[in-house]
């Protein structure tokens, strides 16, 4: 069983919701990333989304754009991320890892080569922001054949017909984008989210995780009431941005931000 499915089935037994932090790999420099990942797990992360830095992150707001710029300035490449995952796996064999990013770096490596390497280092899922299911007919099966989950987004603008297609192709979990906009934008509205999740529940057994607009323990707890998982990105990346000159303090800060969310969600 894929680690993602395993994790959700454990959480279900425990009656808990998944807490899924996102950080951009290589931010503020590649040597810190694996340490941050372990810190996130210690603070209660159930799954880690590791961002692949890209020169043109069209779906991201300024916080993650700048994280990409910092990581790229340090020369972080997709192949380096795979090494980071391999290093992480030497210590942690249980926490699922999802690589999240844009298609072009994967295109350059080649779909099959990438899928082989990702599977061999212990990646569990892949979310390509600019690859909807309609464009995944070549890449999707290559992931599936290696036990890697192809994770897709659902947005407030997604029609029911499209949602059905996405549910049919999706694996691991569905990433529900809580608001129209880029990452790090306004705060979400939990009632609105609940309303959009209801029809998705009818269509799929996949866990429904919600991202965009989750800032603190309060919003995390609100979302956890209606969703199976809470995804938090910009709130963490912001802390990294604020402490680029004191990188040794970042792991502790990430733990405190995420820990507050964990406590609020489990209360």
């Amino acid at each position, binding site marked *: 069983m894929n680690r993602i499915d395993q994790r959700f089935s454990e959480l279900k037994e425990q009656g808990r919701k998944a807490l899924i932090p996102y950080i951009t790999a290589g931010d503020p420099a590649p040597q810190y990333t694996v340490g941050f990942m372990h810190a996130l797990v210690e603070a209660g992360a159930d799954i880690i989304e590791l961002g692949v830095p890209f020169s*043109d992150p*069209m779906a991201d707001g300024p916080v993650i754009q700048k994280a990409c710029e910092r990581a790229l300035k340090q020369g972080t490449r997709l192949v380096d991320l795979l090494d980071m995952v391999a290093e992480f796996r030497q210590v942690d064999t249980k926490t699922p890892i999802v690589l999240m990013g844009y298609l*072009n770096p*994967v295109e350059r490596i080649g779909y099959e080569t990438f899928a082989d390497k990702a599977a061999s280092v212990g990646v569990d899922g892949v979310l390509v922001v600019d690859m909807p299911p309609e464009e995944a007919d070549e890449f999707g099966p290559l992931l599936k054949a290696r036990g890697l989950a192809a994770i897709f987004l659902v*947005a407030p603008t997604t029609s029911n017909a499209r949602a059905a297609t*996405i549910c049919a192709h999706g694996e691991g979990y569905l990433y529900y984008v809580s608001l129209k906009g880029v990452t790090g934008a306004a705060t979400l509205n939990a009632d609105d989210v609940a309303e959009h999740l209801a029809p998705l529940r009818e269509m799929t057994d996949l866990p429904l995780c919600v991202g965009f607009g989750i800032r603190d323990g309060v919003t995390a707890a609100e979302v956890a009431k209606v969703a199976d998982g809470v995804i938090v990105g910009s709130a963490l990346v912001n802390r990294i941005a604020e402490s680029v000159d004191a990188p040794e303090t970042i792991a502790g800060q990430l733990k405190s931000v995420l820990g507050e969310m964990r406590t609020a969600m489990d209360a």
Partner: protein
Amino acid sequence: MTVSATETKFSDLTRMPDARGHFGPYGGRFVSETLSFALEELEQTYLSLRDDPAFQAEFDRDLAHYVGRPSPLYHAERWSQSLGGAQIWLKREDLNHTGAHKVNNTIGQALLAKKTGKPRVIAETGAGQHGVATATVAARLGLECDVYMGAADVQRQKLNVYRMRLLGARVIPVESGTRTLKDAMNEALRDWVTNVDNTFYIIGTVAGPHPYPQLVRDFNSVVGREARQQSLAQIGRLPDALIACVGGGSNALGLFYPFVEDDAVAMYGVEAGGDGIETGRHAAPLSTNAPRGVLHGNRTYLMSDEAGQVSDTHSISAGLDYPGVGPEHALWKDVGRVSYVAANDKEVLEAFRELTHMEGIMPALESAHALAHAKVLAPTMRPDQHIVVNLSGRGDKDIMTVANIDGIEF
């Protein structure tokens, strides 16, 4: 991916893209989910109106009475004679209202925006010509208009920035990335994803996600349809060659598309050679055989490094300063229908000056790329042969750039 490019026949090229927006292995709709609905809606709106005689009549009426079409096909006799070869004919898109071919497309998309009832339009712009053309149609239809422009381009195209503001548009300088056209497009996409309910995104070139490459091509094809008729009337036959500059590639596709099945008509797309192909400082993905990649919603030839990060580009002309190219051009390169070449900044400036001196026509620096290749091609041909060059825009906006190179300050 669907069919491989090499299986495609020239006659198939008129039937692209397929239902999912693919041009052979290129094109498509690589966007984040939030935009999928808006693109499906736009596709349906466009497909339902494309063959609607009332819509076509309204479009034609605007092109005639607002843009001033048809634009002339002008025989540049003196310049042809001095080059000592083929006769050069200029398709005078520079004489359109707002001074470039860009307005053909913005008129069309503004009509679509009107049909969808959205009160706000946004656009990305490089040289500012598309921004001006968008601000113009927005003013005419009473739509709110925001234009994203790379901060570097805001600096080098001050005149067009002020024109847009006079027209009532807000110009938003984009400071991220390389501060040029690609970054403006990123920011426009971010705006659209946030304001998708009330905003129509008027993309200015034959790139972006499906259906943009198709509809921008179709709206610009009036250029080639006219040029074809005018050639028959004025030359007495079809021309031997067509030349157009290629950034995203909208003026080139506009001219080329109606000739695609005329096998005897050679076609040349001229990319921005910048400081010279050998320096790496250029914006010429096709003529340098850049790898395939995905950016701004489509798969195409894309300048990127080995890790898949999009490369910095360089060109004297802001309008060609883009690392990708329309997906239909990518296919046309693979099947060999169009030859793609590059002209460097120095050759472009020479062509700019030559046409200005010899014909009294000041071309946009973008269009001067096409002229630079005409200078190379014409002397290799006979005086009874004919080349049509798309003079896609006028050069007023570039006077400051050229003056700076000449060391002149105002």
